[in-house]
C-alpha cells in the first residue's frame, strides 16, 4: 500500500510532459473540442501519439500497446488532461480494436488493427436502433448470408460522427428465429459500400454529432464477420464492459474543475470572486470530494485488473459516478457564467465574437450536450440494473 511515485515514474512523467509540450499539433492549439469542425481536427493528436507508439496504452503489447503499469497509465492520463489534449475517439481504439484482437482471426487483426492505431481508418459504432436503446438485444437490422457475402438491411441511429467514418462495426440479426441474444452477429462494414446513407441528427445544443445510418441491400464480405455467426452478443457485451471501464474520465474532470475554478475566480458577486462565496466554494468542494472518491474507486478497480481480474459489473459504478461528476461540472459552470449563458453561441459566425467573456461562450451548450452522458453507453438506469443483478444478486 503506497501512493508515492518512484523515481522511474517521475522520470516517465517528465518524459510525457515534454513530449506533449514538443509535439502538440499546431492546428489544435487554442481550440477546444467544441470548435473541432474538420475530420483532421479529431485525428491530429492521435497521429502524433501513434508515431510515438503511445496511442493504445490499454492494448496488449503484441498488438501495439505500450506495456505500461497502472501507475504509468495514471500519469499519462493526468499529463494529457493537464495539457488538455483532445480525447482520442473511442470507437476504434477502445471499442472495436479490443474486440478484434480478442475475438477476430489473424487476417482481421492484420487488416484492421494497424489502421485503427494509425487513425487511417475512422470507425463508428452501429449498435443502437430506433426501436432498441437500452434494450440493445432487440435490434432488427438484418444480415442475410448469400454465398460469401451478407446482405444487410436496416437502420442504426445515434451513430457518433458517422459523417467522417470509413468503417462501422455493427450488430446485426442473422437468425430471427431464436432467442434475441442468440441470433446476433458482429459485422465490420465499409462505409463506402453502396446502399449506405448517413443522415444527420441535430442535438438540442445545435450540434451535429450523431447520425442515422441506413442500410439498403448493403453487400458485406463474409470475411468481415467477427468470431462466429450468431455469437455477436458475447462480443457486444465484452465491448460494453470495456467501454465502461474507461468512462470515469477522472483526469479530464480534474482539469475541468480547474477551469471551473478559474471561471469562478473571474466572475464576481458584489465585487468578491464567486469562488470566494460560501455557497459556491462548498459546491465545488463537494464536487472535488466526489471526484476524489471516484478516483480511488477507479484505482482500486485497476489494481484488481492488474492482478488479472477482468473489470466486472462493478465497473458500472465508474460510468454512473463518472458521468454524474461530468454533468455536475457543466451545471456549475453554467451557474458560474450567469447571464452570459443565454447567448446561443452557434448563432455567431466563425469570425464573430459572441458577447460576454470568452470562457462563457458555449457553456450552456456544453451543459445541454452533456445530458447525453447519462443516456449513452447503457443509460445510468441500465448500469444500476446491472449492479443490482450482477453484484448484489437481486
Amino acid at each position, binding site marked *: 500500500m503506497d501512493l508515492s511515485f518512484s523515481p522511474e515514474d517521475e522520470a516517465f512523467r517528465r518524459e510525457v510532459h515534454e513530449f506533449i509540450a514538443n509535439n502538440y499539433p499546431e492546428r489544435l492549439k487554442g481550440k477546444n473540442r467544441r470548435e473541432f469542425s474538420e475530420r483532421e481536427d479529431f485525428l491530429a493528436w492521435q497521429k502524433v501519439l501513434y508515431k510515438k507508439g503511445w496511442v493504445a496504452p490499454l492494448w496488449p503489447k503484441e498488438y501495439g500497446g505500450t506495456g505500461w503499469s497502472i501507475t504509468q497509465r495514471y500519469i499519462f492520463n493526468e499529463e494529457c488532461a493537464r495539457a488538455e489534449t483532445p480525447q482520442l475517439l473511442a470507437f476504434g481504439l477502445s471499442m472495436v480494436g479490443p474486440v478484434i484482437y480478442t475475438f477476430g482471426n489473424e487476417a482481421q487483426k492484420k487488416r484492421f488493427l494497424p489502421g485503427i492505431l494509425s487513425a487511417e481508418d475512422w470507425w463508428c459504432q452501429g449498435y443502437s436502433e430506433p426501436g432498441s436503446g437500452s434494450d440493445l438485444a*432487440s435490434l432488427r437490422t438484418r444480415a442475410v448470408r448469400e454465398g460469401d457475402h451478407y446482405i444487410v438491411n436496416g437502420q442504426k441511429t445515434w451513430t457518433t460522427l458517422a459523417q467522417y467514418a470509413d468503417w462501422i462495426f455493427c450488430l446485426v440479426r442473422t437468425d430471427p428465429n431464436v432467442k434475441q441474444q442468440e441470433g446476433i452477429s458482429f459485422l465490420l462494414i465499409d462505409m463506402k459500400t453502396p446502399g449506405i446513407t448517413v443522415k444527420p441528427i441535430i442535438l438540442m445544443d445545435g450540434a451535429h454529432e*450523431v447520425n442515422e445510418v441506413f442500410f439498403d441491400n448493403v453487400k458485406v464480405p463474409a470475411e468481415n464477420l467477427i468470431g462466429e455467426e450468431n455469437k455477436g452478443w458475447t462480443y457486444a457485451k465484452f465491448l460494453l464492459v470495456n467501454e465502461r471501464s474507461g468512462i470515469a474520465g477522472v483526469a479530464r474532470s480534474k482539469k475541468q474543475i480547474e477551469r471551473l475554478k478559474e471561471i469562478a475566480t473571474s466572475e464576481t458577486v458584489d465585487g468578491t470572486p464567486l469562488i470566494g462565496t460560501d455557497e459556491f466554494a462548498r459546491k465545488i468542494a463537494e464536487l472535488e470530494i466526489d471526484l476524489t472518491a471516484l478516483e480511488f474507486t477507479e484505482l482500486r478497480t485497476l489494481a484488481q485488473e492488474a492482478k488479472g481480474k477482468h473489470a466486472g459489473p462493478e465497473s458500472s459504478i465508474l460510468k454512473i459516478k463518472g458521468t454524474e461528476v461530468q454533468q455536475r461540472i457543466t451545471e456549475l459552470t453554467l451557474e458560474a457564467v450567469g447571464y452570459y449563458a443565454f447567448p446561443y453561441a452557434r448563432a*455567431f459566425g466563425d469570425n464573430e465574437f459572441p458577447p*460576454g467573456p470568452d470562457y462563457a461562450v458555449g457553456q450552456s451548450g456544453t451543459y445541454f450536450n452533456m445530458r447525453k452522458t447519462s443516456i449513452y453507453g447503457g443509460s445510468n438506469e441500465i448500469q444500476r440494473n446491472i449492479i443490482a443483478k450482477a453484484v448484489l444478486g437481486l
Partner: protein
Amino acid sequence: MDFSYSEEQTLLRNSVAKFLADHYDFESYKKISRSEAGWSRSVWKQFAELGLMAAPLPEEFGGLGGGAVDTMIIMEEFGRALVVEPFASTVVVGGGFLRHGGSAAQKEKWLSKIADGSTVMAFAFAEPEGRYNFADLTTTAKRNGSGYTLNGQKAVVLNAPHADVLIVSARTAGGRRDTKGVSVFLVDRNAKGVSTRDYPTIDGQRASEISFDNVDLPAEALLGTVDEGLGLIERVTDEAIAAHTAEAAGAMKVLLDTTVEYTKTRKQFGVPIGKFQVLQHRMVDMFIQAEQTTSMALMVTLKLDEGETERKKAASAAKVQLGKGGRFVGQQAVQLHGGMGMTDELNVGHYFKRLALLDTLYGNVDHHLKRYAALSD
C-alpha cells in the same frame, strides 16, 4: 382565504389555451423563433385583440383590471406553449414600472399603448459584471439641465430587439452597489446614442447587448423618484418572478405530460418503459415538482401586495422552487426520453432550455436562497 377562480378568470384561461392550441403549436413556435425577427408581430396583435395585454392592467388606463392573477393564468399557458413574444417584459415589467413608478402623465401615455399592443418594452438592467445585484451598476445618468445624459453598457437584454422602449436602470448618485442612487428611465430604443447588438438566446428568444453613448434623456424619461429606483426595481421584478414561476409551472406540466405519454408507448425489453418502477417514481417526483411550482406561483401571486418583506420572501421562495424544480423536471424529461430527448426535433429539449434560462433570470437559486435567508433574520 379564497382559492377559487372567478368566472372571468376561467374564461380567460380557456380563451388563451384555445388560441395557443389553434395558433401556437410546437411547429409554429419553431418557425417563429427561427424567423429572422425571432417573434411574430401578427401573433402579438392577436394577443392584443384577445385582450391579453389589457387583462392585468388597471381599468382607468385601458386595462381590464385583472391584476396579477390574470398574469399568472396567461403566463402559465404561455409557458405551456413556449411563447417567445415579449409579454412579460412589456406587460409585467413595463406595465409594472409604470403602475408603481409612473407619473399620471406617464401612465396615461404608456399604459394604454401597452394594453392595445402598440408598444413593446424590454428591461435593460443586467451589466457585464453586475450579476444579480440590481444596484451593481456602472451605467450612469448624469443631470443635464432638466434631463439626463445616459452612458453605459447593458448585457443580455431579453426581447430588446423587438422593443420600442427600453427601461434602463442607471446610477444617478452614490458608488457602485450603493442601494441609494439608482434610477430608472424610459429610453426610446431608436434614440441617438443607443446602439444594440442583437442575437438569439439558447431558448429561441432574442436579446441584445446595448450601449448608451451620451444619450439625451428628457426629464419625463425618469420613472419614479430619482435615486430611489432600487425598491421600484425589486417590486417590479418580484412581480415578474411571479409571472415566470407560472410560466415555468406550465412548461413543467408539458414536460411531465410528454414524458408520461412517451414512456407509455416507448417499449424496451418488450414492455412500455413506463412500467419500470424507477421511471414511474421519477415521473412522480416530476409531478410533485410541477405541483409545488404551481403552488408557489399561486402563493407569490397572492402575496405581491403584502408588505415588502413578505413580498420579497415570497418571490425568492418561488424563484428557488422554479430553479430547483425546473432543473429536475427538465433533466429527467430528457433522461426518460433517452436519445430522442437530446434532439432538436423533439419539444423536450426546448422546454428544458427555456427552464434553464428562467432558472437564471432575475437571480438563480443561490441568489434567492441568500435573499430569502437574509429576509428571515
